[in-house]
């Protein structure tokens, strides 16, 4: 059954007809060609596919597009400033070597932004707990935690 939906993706209104069982991850990658969102496991375990729905991190491989009628979705493509520079979280990942192969990075960045938005003054322990849903096979996590801590400082300065 084709389900008519309308939602906002990275600030733009998107209207489409989808199958009832179309996952948000496939809709983003195959329909909208937003391939920055990665599919690592497709079993809701790894967090590589993390995007924001209404500002909160969710695993896009475990949500149907049909469920999101009227919602606001933000992907990794939607967080970079228009001038092509990096979001402070991306810049911190780069500065701290918070990535190696980069497969997990988009999901890590999206989870970390949600974490800092709700807990701007996190400890390293809270950062680790906040990234519980994101797996990385390369880095050993140390530099990811450093990156999020650095971004917390940078984003704290940005805040009015």
């Amino acid at each position, binding site marked *: 059954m084709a389900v008519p939906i309308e939602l906002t993706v990275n600030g733009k209104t998107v209207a489409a007809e989808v199958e009832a069982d179309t996952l948000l991850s496939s809709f983003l990658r195959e329909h909208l060609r937003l391939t920055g969102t990665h599919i690592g496991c497709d079993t809701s375990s790894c967090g590589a596919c993390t995007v924001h729905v209404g500002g909160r991190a969710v695993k896009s491989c475990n949500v149907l597009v049909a*469920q999101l009628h009227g919602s606001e979705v933000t992907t990794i493509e939607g967080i970079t400033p228009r001038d092509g520079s990096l979001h402070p979280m991306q810049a911190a990942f780069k500065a701290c070597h918070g990535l190696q192969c980069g497969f997990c990075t988009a999901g890590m960045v999206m989870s970390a932004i*949600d974490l800092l938005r709700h807990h701007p003054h996190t400890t390293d322990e809270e950062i680790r707990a906040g990234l519980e*849903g994101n797996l990385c096979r390369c880095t050993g996590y140390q530099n990811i935690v450093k990156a999020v801590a650095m971004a917390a400082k940078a984003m704290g300065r940005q805040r009015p």
Partner: protein
Amino acid sequence: MSAMAYHRPSSLAEAAKLAAGDPDARILAGGQSILPSMKLGLLAPSAFIDLAALGELRGIRADRKSVTVGAMTTHAAVAASPEVMAAIPSLAKLAAGIGDPQVRNRGTIGGSLANSDPAADYPAAVLALNATIRTNRRALPADGFFKGLFETALAPGEIITAVEFPVPNTASYVKFPQPASRFALVGVFVAQTSTGVRVAVTGAGPCAFRVKVLEDALARRYAPQACEGISLPSGDLNTDIHASAEYRAHLIPVLAQRALA
């Protein structure tokens, strides 16, 4: 092309009518259990009946006597609720320990209870706190709600609307998480309620259950020492790649003791 249908009813009555009209349709809440089961081929519903538009099923109300959580309230909302933290801090802590942040942002209390996963956290709280499960048809007591593996007292098509937790004198939950999924290898919820001491266990059997020997021991003395020397039979408990039934049986009094420490 998939043949599946998707409905987004705008009233509870409409949702109930859709559910009654199609026995193979599934109520959809957060989707955090349904979608993984569908991918594993364990479930192939004819239609989704999405409760997303029913705002009245979302939200938390609390007074001195009880905390009522709407069925569509997410784990993240319960974990962050000042009302829940003030009235039943152990319940907020339990919600904050479910899965990971992404799962907590979508998963709901109604979905968790209707699912009755043997390793889910909320069933332990519902049993230990003697909660009432409200549906579109009736109010169901916690005792007798969990019937078995993924089996509850809900009738086909019955919809959970809210869960009412009486405020206990004191309560505590400790889970031993299975490190990969964060589901409970074993979780023990201990509470001193107006109807006595209640101890509920999840993760160990086909569904959450109460443990009378621990309740009796803690009724005599509500202290960690009261759990010492208690051993439980492992006969009906789960064995899987993560732990044996004997290990799970051993963990129950150990976690009860930690809950009281």
